[in-house]
């Protein structure tokens, strides 16, 4: 067992359910201390993957290795399960006190009450619910229950933590504080984690590595920046919120600089593309800058288009503005510039983005990330 051995590795993992292949993972390895966040829509096979990884579901094919040992062969399933912790979407607390809930994993391992007590106290404190320890779990609020569920998982001092959309049923504010607390604990403990979610913000907050799942497969893994800036395909792009995916055709090129026609407008980009090739241009909304229509073209950006503001949606610190520039374009505007620009439905603005802000996906040949 060398330091380079991944904590956790799945090889050629397949799960068939009801006659159809619902999970197909060629290879997935997680190293010590890594926080791998898998993002994907519902039905992408995220939960199935977690259940297979935690040996709660027997894969139809393939094996899982824990620190180089094949589970079920080199290491018994029960022992393996006792070295990990899993948190499901619902807190699934037992009908007893919060203390007993947090102690349950330890009791299952046959620990004595006097050994259990300090560990449970610490776990409760860590998630800020020490004051709730004698309360019945049934009386907790959604957020408190998640905290208890997290404390229960951490109490057993797991080597791997698997989380299956633990906060998806919570309201945004509650979710925000819980993610913050979880992030803190994860960084503090350095525990190897796999977290699945369909929420992009959650993913970006926690991930040291990001993976995108779709239809039972992992399409791409890499650092969050890599995946966000260089999605391998449109699906990945849409999922990591590159909301602007503009389809166009390369009409001119000059070295690596090319011009693509998108709904009759010319957009300049950089990339290795062939003339006449169909491309998708991905532009992250936060990279689109808006300026007053009257200002002419004050920015250095080459790609500047006049547009009309359509729908405006507040999203936390930002507002999301949908523009019509001959092609649809989404921009994120901070609340303050929103006020400065006096944006309204129908307002005319100039929208611009850098050539470097464009990620090019070639339609014909798949790109490697």
């Amino acid at each position, binding site marked *: 067992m060398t330091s380079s051995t991944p904590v956790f590795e799945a090889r050629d993992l397949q799960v068939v359910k009801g006659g159809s292949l619902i999970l197909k993972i060629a290879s997935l390895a997680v190293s010590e201390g890594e926080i791998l966040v898998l993002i994907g829509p519902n039905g992408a096979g995220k939960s199935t993957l977690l259940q297979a990884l935690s040996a709660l579901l027997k894969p139809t094919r393939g094996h899982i290795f824990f620190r180089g040992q094949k589970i079920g062969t080199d290491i018994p399933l029960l022992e393996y399960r006792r070295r990990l912790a899993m948190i499901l979407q619902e807190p699934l607390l037992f009908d007893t006190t919060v203390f007993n809930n947090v102690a349950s994993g330890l*009791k*299952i391992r*046959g*620990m*004595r*009450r006097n050994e259990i007590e300090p560990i449970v106290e610490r776990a409760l404190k860590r998630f800020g619910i020490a004051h709730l320890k004698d309360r019945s779990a049934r009386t907790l609020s959604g957020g408190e229950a998640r905290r208890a569920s997290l404390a229960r998982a951490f109490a057993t001092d797991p080597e791997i933590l698997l989380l299956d959309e633990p906060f998806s049923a919570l309201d945004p504010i509650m979710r925000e504080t819980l993610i913050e607390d979880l992030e803190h604990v994860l960084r503090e403990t350095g525990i190897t984690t796999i977290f699945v979610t369909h929420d992009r913000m959650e993913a970006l907050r926690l991930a040291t590595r990001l993976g995108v799942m779709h239809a039972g497969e992992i399409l791409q893994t890499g650092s969050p920046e890599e995946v966000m800036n260089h999605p391998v395909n449109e699906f990945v792009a849409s999922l990591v919120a590159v909301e602007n995916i503009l389809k166009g055709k390369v009409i001119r090129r000059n070295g690596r600089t090319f011009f693509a026609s998108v709904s009759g407008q010319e957009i300049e980009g950089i990339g290795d593309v062939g003339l006449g090739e169909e491309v998708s241009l991905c532009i992250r909304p936060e990279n689109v800058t808006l300026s007053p229509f009257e200002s002419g073209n004050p920015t250095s950006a080459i790609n500047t288009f006049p547009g009309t503001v359509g729908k405006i949606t507040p999203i936390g610190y930002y507002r999301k503005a949908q523009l019509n520039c001959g092609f649809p374009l989404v921009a994120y505007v901070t609340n303050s510039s929103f006020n400065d620009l006096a944006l309204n439905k129908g307002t005319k603005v100039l929208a611009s983005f850098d050539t470097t802000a464009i990620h090019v996906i070639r339609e014909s040949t798949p790109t490697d990330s």
Partner: protein
Amino acid sequence: MRNMKKYSYAGFMFFSIFVLLVNLGPTAEAQEKTLILATTTSTQDTGLLDVLIPIFEKKTGFFVKTIAVGSGQAMTMGRKGEADVLLVHSPAAEKQFMDDGFGVTRRLVMHNDFVLAGPDEDPAKIKGLKSAAEALKKIASAQALFMSRGDNSGTHAKEKDVWKVSGVKYEGEKWYQQTGLGMGQTLNVAAEKKGYTLTDRGTYLSLAKTLKLGILVEGDAVLLNIYHVMEVNQAKWPKVNIAAAKAFADFMVSKETQEIIKTFGVDKYGSPLFFPDAGKKVEDLGK
């Protein structure tokens, strides 16, 4: 610790069940000392056995399990070897029982008599008739409600005998109903529905205070209700406790028991419920 708790809990359950079963279960010795008496509801409902059994148990050390059913079922139990001794009142069936070799001895214990009871209104006008068969004929022609036990008991057998003597058709008639219940309950039903019924005098007397039924016909020789005691044949069924059975039969015809039977019920009802007959002949009864 959880495991400990679980095991001790399971252990406790097992232990408590075990203790209870041991407490409630029979021992080998108890089986040898146990006598199963199959008898009629009338002997139990009158309370006679409540008086006699403790005396017998004290005297002999046997433990008596009294199973109070109809005479028919009692004899079926005897035929199957599920009872050791029978105290019943269905002479024709008893003879058959003896002829088929299921009994050892058959001894006369006591008698009382059956009476025809009915509502005071007496719609069939049978009050005071000397012949029971005549009375049934009048009930049939008046189509007055008649409640039968219908349970193959001694009383039911006697009732069928009298119907036979009367020669009228009664089975399947609308006014002829069967309760399928014991004597006491059948009397209650008859009283509620203002019907006639055939009852042993003992049960009638013990219930008379709560019933609105009067004795309308009595004293006919055909209405004699005769109790015999029979030991079940051990040769047919080896498990029969013949020693206990014989002891009980002997006890029933003993002088002391016969004295008790003679006076039983006098204090409560003003007249005896049964007449002791040990040693007599059936032909001499009622004379």
